[in-house]
């Protein structure tokens, strides 16, 4: 049995995300030999050394292809592979999986799953500076969600679902913000701790309130429609995983897909767009939601849940959660600019949410 493949971030390589260790390279070569193709060249595009994943571009006699080492547990990856295949069959614009000589959708080596897909080119990012670009992304996302409906998990795959876990996730966020406070208190001597303690109550209260709002929202009723009826959310969608290509918008990197309310992807896309802009803009938000609904006409109740999801302190949480791993360093040097940025967009966020709620006619934010 060949060596298992795992993370290599801590092995002292100088640029661990731009290389793979020898056992991974060897496994890649074994995998490629299982496909009906002659490989003239392989280029590592990127690697996730902390997780043990990688993606290569292959030049083959069958045209350009991609080879991907999926870092998750093989049972989990089977879910993603089956989902990708389902989406291809449903004519979603996601790269088609190439079957191995034995007719399999994936290959196994080093204890992980590997896939070979078409290499889609040209792929170009949509414009980040105008609303039209953002709308293209949203429309493509809506198409993806619509076509993912009806997916059934294959027997040998781990069931990947977040559909029923929203309450848990909301509760967890409130709990974890409490962790930040406790560390701020224990590390009071570290500069930056006071700035954290000054705002943590506010964001914790936001998380708790969002949880209450979720409970009062149509969430419970909606999820009863079941996983397959809702279909899949991408879970890591944005400007790099949705790109313009032949025939429209292509969606790549599907390894994290899971059953969920689809608008979770939309919420993340909109929040991060607003965050990057430094200001929440209700016109953009409306434009993005409209574009999404054109492709996937979700009902008003779903939009209600979307608004609740916006009301979580997502931006604060996302940017501060790193502190548990290195509290002294983080609070001392990184925290203050992060807090300044979050604070700066806070006012416009709540203003925009209120206007959005009115515009969509779904109750106040």
């Amino acid at each position, binding site marked *: 049995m060949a060596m298992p493949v795992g*993370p290599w971030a801590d092995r002292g390589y100088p640029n661990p995300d731009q290389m793979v260790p020898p056992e991974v390279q060897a496994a890649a070569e074994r995998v490629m030999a299982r496909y009906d193709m002659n490989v003239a060249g392989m280029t590592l595009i990127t690697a996730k050394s*902390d997780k043990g994943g990688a993606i290569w571009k292959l030049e083959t006699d069958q045209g350009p292809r991609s080879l991907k080492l999926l870092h998750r547990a093989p*049972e989990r990856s089977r879910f993603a592979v089956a989902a990708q295949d389902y989406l291809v069959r449903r004519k979603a614009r996601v790269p088609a999986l190439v079957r191995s000589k034995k007719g399999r959708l994936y290959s196994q080596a080093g204890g992980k799953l590997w896939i070979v897909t078409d290499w889609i080119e040209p792929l170009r990012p949509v414009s980040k500076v105008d609303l039209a670009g953002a709308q293209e992304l949203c429309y493509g996302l809506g198409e993806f969600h619509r076509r993912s409906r009806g997916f059934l*998990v*294959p*027997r*040998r*795959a*781990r*069931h990947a*679902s977040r*559909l*029923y*876990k929203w309450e848990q996730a909301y509760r*967890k966020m409130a*709990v*974890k913000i409490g*962790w930040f406070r*406790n*560390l701020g208190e*224990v*590390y009071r001597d570290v500069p930056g701790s006071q700035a954290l303690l000054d705002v943590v109550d506010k964001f914790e209260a936001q998380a708790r309130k969002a949880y209450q709002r979720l409970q009062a929202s149509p969430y419970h009723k909606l*999820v009863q429609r*079941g996983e397959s009826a809702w279909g899949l959310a991408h879970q890591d969608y944005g400007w790099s995983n949705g790109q313009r290509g032949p025939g429209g918008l292509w969606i790549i990197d599907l390894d994290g897909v899971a059953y969920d309310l689809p608008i979770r992807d939309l919420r993340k896309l909109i929040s991060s767009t607003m965050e990057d802009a430094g200001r929440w803009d209700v016109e953009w938000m409306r434009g993005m939601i409209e574009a999404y609904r054109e492709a996937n006409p979700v009902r008003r109740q779903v939009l209600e849940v979307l608004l609740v999801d916006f009301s979580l302190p997502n931006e604060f949480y996302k940017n501060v*959660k790193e502190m*548990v*791993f290195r*509290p002294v360093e983080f609070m001392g040097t990184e925290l203050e600019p992060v807090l300044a940025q979050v604070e700066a967009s806070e006012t416009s966020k709540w203003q925009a949410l209120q206007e959005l709620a009115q515009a969509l006619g779904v109750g106040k934010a």
Partner: protein
Amino acid sequence: MKVLLIVTEKLPVPAVRGGAIQTYIDGVLPYLARVHDVTVLGVEDPELAADERVGNVRYVRVPGKIFGVYEKHVLTFLAKASSRYDLIHIFNRPRLVQGVHQKAPQARIILSMHNDMFLPGKISHEEADTAIQACERIVTVSDYVGRRVVQDYPQAESRLRTIYSGVDVQRYNPRRHRDQVEQARRELKGRYGIEGRNVVLFVGRLSPKKGADVLVRSMWHLAQGHPEAALVLVGGKWYSDNGMSDYMAYVKALADRCPLPVVTTGFVAADEIHRWFWLGDVFVCPSQWEEPLARVHYEAMAARLPIVTTARGGNPEVIVHGENGLLLKRPEDPRAMAKAVGRLLANPSLRQRMGKNGWRLAKSRYRWRRVAQEILDVWENTP
């Protein structure tokens, strides 16, 4: 009777890789197999045979890990089984009931519930209704687990019966192994440089549910009156195979600043665990979220330790406040936790009295023989 026990797809029996359900089955099997012809159907393991007879128990082990894979093999086994089972006892997998019932319609079905496998997301409402209908009895490890089932499925109520789990009391009893106890204390305390300190003991995984973080935070309060104490987190480790979770990082960041020593032992094998209980002066189970009923309570009682536990899930069912331990009404409050632990540390005779009461309780109510007898009552349908 010919009886088939069907375990979960996760861990093998015997409990060579741990697991509460697997430990439970190991504990009662000798008694059950004395009376009935028992086969245990479970998940395969590289270290165990696919089909073997040990004593008078037959073990069959099939591929699993993923529920769907396991289900297929379980049903295939039943379809091919040369002889018929009179009774099939399924552990913690209500989703297996319907298929098993179809393949073995003549068999009576008993279901044991160890946690919340009836919750939405774990099983559909229709599937759960059918499963409950097909079960003669549903055995739960605490009243709490039963109440949770009834909340969503009131029709289950008449089928429920609580059978508390058990422990090998003599293995943990420090009075029975005086020399070994002394040696374990010397060796283990020496290993971590906590000689001469009173040990506050936690046994379990480092997860938010189990609440080790609140216990670590309580050490700031405890240190004021008890600077000689130390906290030992047994089974805990800062790094797992998948790196460090944010929770582990959080607890470690707390521990790094803790005024009292905080020790993590890493994984401890099941056959070693009793030695760690001997190290403790006070046992704390700081569960934060509703738990079915943590096994560690039985082990701590058998080890004659006074227990501080939280009023969460089934935990209060085995603790009589002031008798064998102290019950915390506000599990998230580190100050109250420190107060309870401190009260016990300050009073050796109280510790001893509570430890003794716990031991008596364990001996009279929580032995495997009693667990097995109650399972036999269910099998033999005696009220």
